[in-house]
């Protein structure tokens, strides 16, 4: 990626997965890295990368996307956890659909563009949080009975799979981010997370994080 920094600011670290999920879904993983900046306007190098990607991803790639190992692995995992991947789309399919609809990957902001680049290039699911609003390491676990979720009236359905820090759930897995835990204009440090499932190698998660972090620091 020409024009983008190549060194790690913070090396990626694996998050935790609750033992009950580790047993049920071997391969489920979350890896994180922190970048010392928030979002904002995308730099020229990132916009250029999006343009170049738009030229490479066309209709043919979209049609055969679900035959590729990593997108297929996410579709399978969605089925395993009760989601219909044709309704709640996997991240890479959602971006592909937007690409087809808009005729290209439109630049939104530095963070969204960074996540788009990482997701489309590698196929992995990416999330971002305000690093200063998290307490401890991130992990994946089922929600406890009556557990609250910021921004949601009432409580989470017991057993909902969530991304959580050591205090509270910060996002529903492949769903909404808790209010106040996402990246906002005042965010100074961004925590990038790559979610892996069975069939997605760790190296792909690290590659995704590296791409996103590089785009964030461009």
């Amino acid at each position, binding site marked *: 990626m020409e024009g983008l920094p190549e060194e790690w600011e913070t090396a990626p670290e694996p998050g935790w997965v609750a033992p009950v999920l580790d047993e049920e879904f071997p391969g489920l993983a979350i890896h994180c890295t922190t970048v010392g900046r928030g979002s904002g306007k995308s730099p020229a190098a990132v916009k250029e990368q999006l343009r170049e990607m738009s030229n490479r991803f066309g209709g043919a790639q979209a*049609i055969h996307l*679900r*035959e590729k190992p990593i997108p297929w692995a996410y579709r399978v995992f969605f089925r*395993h956890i009760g989601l219909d991947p044709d309704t709640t789309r996997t991240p890479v399919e959602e971006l592909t659909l937007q690409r087809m609809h808009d005729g290209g990957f439109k630049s939104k902001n530095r963070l969204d563009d960074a996540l788009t680049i990482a997701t489309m290039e590698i196929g992995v699911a990416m999330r971002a949080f305000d690093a200063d609003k998290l307490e401890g390491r991130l992990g994946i676990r089922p929600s406890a009975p009556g557990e609250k979720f910021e921004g949601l009236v009432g409580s989470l359905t017991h057993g909902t799979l969530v991304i959580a820090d050591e205090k509270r759930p910060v996002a529903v897995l492949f*769903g909404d981010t808790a209010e106040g835990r996402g990246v906002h204009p005042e965010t100074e440090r961004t925590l990038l997370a790559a979610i892996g499932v069975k069939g997605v190698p760790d190296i792909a998660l690290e590659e995704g994080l590296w791409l996103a972090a590089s785009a964030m620091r461009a």
Partner: protein
Amino acid sequence: MASVEPTEVEEFDQLHAGLAVAVADREDELLVAGRGGEILPPLETAVTEVDERRARRDLRRQIARMEAELGRLFGAAFPRTGIEWGVAAPGGPRVLGVAELEQIRDAMADRLAETRATLGEIAEDEQAYRELVEDIVADPASHKWVRVRSESLGEPSCRHWHVRPRWGVLGMLAGWWRVKLSSGCPLALGRGVSRVPKTAVLPAPA
């Protein structure tokens, strides 16, 4: 893709090992309980848990295979339309039980069977159209005004074969029929939209 899935033998070995460990653990615990420990649930509980875990794993593996097959069919079916691909999901994200996984597995199996049947019917229709194209090319006069679109043959283009008389009415009267192959898809700009505004004045040649 298949390499990520353990083989049947590996799975059986894992299951066997898991059952053996579970039974051994429970026997140890019962021995402790028999020495004055607390009352423990029956041994069958642990075995049932392992059985159910194995069933969930088997179902997940079957779902994964069917998803791969559906994906392959989806890619192969393009550009054909009118095929239903959806498979209902119970809602999540959460750990599904055996019954829910079975429902998904059965729904996917039904969807696969329906999709294969639909694609089979479409393939038969396409074959019939291919034979028709061969016939009209071989003998246009016997297929007056017949028109076959390339999409009827399952081809992603806008071509069509059209049996028309040579030289209009004269050809009709004289029986001079021929097959005309269209040149392709219209421009993306659409009909009636000009690249050059009607009021524009073209620059004079230098």
